[in-house]
């Protein structure tokens, strides 16, 4: 098995029965494993709600570590759509040429930094700084803020070896509180200020609502982006021919990014709470129980994807759910896609090969399933293209 491979632990259960119930802090979750069920359930917000106790739709549940409702993530339509329309234009800024230019400069310079090193640990020395620096563009904050975010480490809610860490979450909440107070006192053109000045439902957004948006932006785009970037580096280490192909055929980079998002599925699953007794895939979902939409499993569904366990760089039709599906699809996806597209472009132009020196996989445990989602650490050496 190649080191970069991400196995699909759900295959047998997906084809046999289509779901699996696992425990999570005494609030069990039934994971839905088939593409069709995942998409239908994601779409049916009336029976499968996101608007429950804050933190409950996340697996593992964050009910015990936060009270702030993440917005628009933990709201259902129609109010979800009203919030989303306030945010949409801001979160589509990564489609602008100047945003992409600034991001290209960041990606290019961090690759150059890494090329100068004898070896590097990708998660902490490359993916985390890149994610944090890129986030300054999305928030439109000074570049130096990224230093603070890098100092928090890879997990915003977790510390090494522990599932959930309330102290760590408080660092983020306190930081966001301070930034919002600053934006209220001295508005600028950053996201905090824009949120505090946003009109919503005939009034301004409240500080608590703005905080809900900011927590979502920080938390949702951290592990996910870091895993996507790190997994891409590992993939290219095993597949130097792919670097070469992207160099020759940059027009397939968009497809390659979607394919990586499908294959990596940086977020394994997301929950919903059942509002009325229902049936999904033969499973009797009881009111007030939880189900989860297993993006990682749906993305390997052999009824939808040919050769699901292979990265087919130029896959043409790719209805993956790596950014979620339906109303709640990823708000940061435009930003994430640009990071990945630019990363692939810059790597293909600068890097000839990557050697993996050693690694420690990041394996999640979901009931009896073990799912590799990325790496705790992976030491590599970047080799420049030889002329």
């Amino acid at each position: 098995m190649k080191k970069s491979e991400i196995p699909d632990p759900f295959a047998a259960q997906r084809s046999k029965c289509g779901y699996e119930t696992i425990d999570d802090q005494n609030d069990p979750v039934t994971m839905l494993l088939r593409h069709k069920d995942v998409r239908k359930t994601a779409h049916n917000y009336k029976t499968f709600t996101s608007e429950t106790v804050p933190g409950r739709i996340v697996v593992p549940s964050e009910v015990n570590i936060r009270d702030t409702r993440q917005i628009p993530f933990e709201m259902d339509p129609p109010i979800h759509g009203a919030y989303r329309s306030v945010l949409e234009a801001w979160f589509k800024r990564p489609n602008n040429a100047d945003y992409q230019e600034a991001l290209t400069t960041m990606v290019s310079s961090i690759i150059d930094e890494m090329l100068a090193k004898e070896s590097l640990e990708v998660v902490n020395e490359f993916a985390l700084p890149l994610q944090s620096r890129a986030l300054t563009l999305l928030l439109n904050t000074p570049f130096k803020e990224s230093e603070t975010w890098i100092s928090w480490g890879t997990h915003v809610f977790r510390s090494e070896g522990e599932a959930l860490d309330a102290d760590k979450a408080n660092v983020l909440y306190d930081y966001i509180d301070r930034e919002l107070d600053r934006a209220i006192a001295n508005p600028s053109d950053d996201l905090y200020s824009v949120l505090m000045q946003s009109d919503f439902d005939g009034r301004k957004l409240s500080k608590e609502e703005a905080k809900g948006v900011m927590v979502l932006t920080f938390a949702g785009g951290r592990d996910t982006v870091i895993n996507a970037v790190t997994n891409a580096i590992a993939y290219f280490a095993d597949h130097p021919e792919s670097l070469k192909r992207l160099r020759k055929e940059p027009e397939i980079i968009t497809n390659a990014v979607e394919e990586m998002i499908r294959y990596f599925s940086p977020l394994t699953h997301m929950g919903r709470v059942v509002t009325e007794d229902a049936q999904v895939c033969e499973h009797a979902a009881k009111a007030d129980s939880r189900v989860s939409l297993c993006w990682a499993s749906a993305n390997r569904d052999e009824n939808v994807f040919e050769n699901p366990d292979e990265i087919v760089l130029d896959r043409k039709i790719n209805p993956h759910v790596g950014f979620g599906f339906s109303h709640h699809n990823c708000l940061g996806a435009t930003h994430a896609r640009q990071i990945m597209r630019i990363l692939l472009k810059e790597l293909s132009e600068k890097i000839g090969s990557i050697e993996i020196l050693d690694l420690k996989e990041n394996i999640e445990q979901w009931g009896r399933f073990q799912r590799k989602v990325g790496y705790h650490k992976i030491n590599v050496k970047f080799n420049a293209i030889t002329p």
Partner: protein
Amino acid sequence: MAKITFITSDEQRITVEGFSGSVMALAVENGIKGIDGDCGGVCSCATCHVHVAPEDVSKTREASEIETDMLELDDHTDQYSRLSCQLQISEDLDGVVLRVAK
């Protein structure tokens, strides 16, 4: 060559000419409001949803099952809905009128 007309949500009619590629890519190149084409045309995001003018439906080829399944789960779908990333530009499409979906 095909002339393709988009009607945006603010009732602007914009006619553009295309030679090849997908209608989504043509719309994005021309900055047609409401067609984002986030996934680049792999049928994953539905941000290129259009309604084909009823009299022009015969100009388009039938949608694949993957496209139909995707549209089935969109709130604004009707019998004229298509994902414009799945509409390939050819002479057959000349004169087609597409209303950008909400």
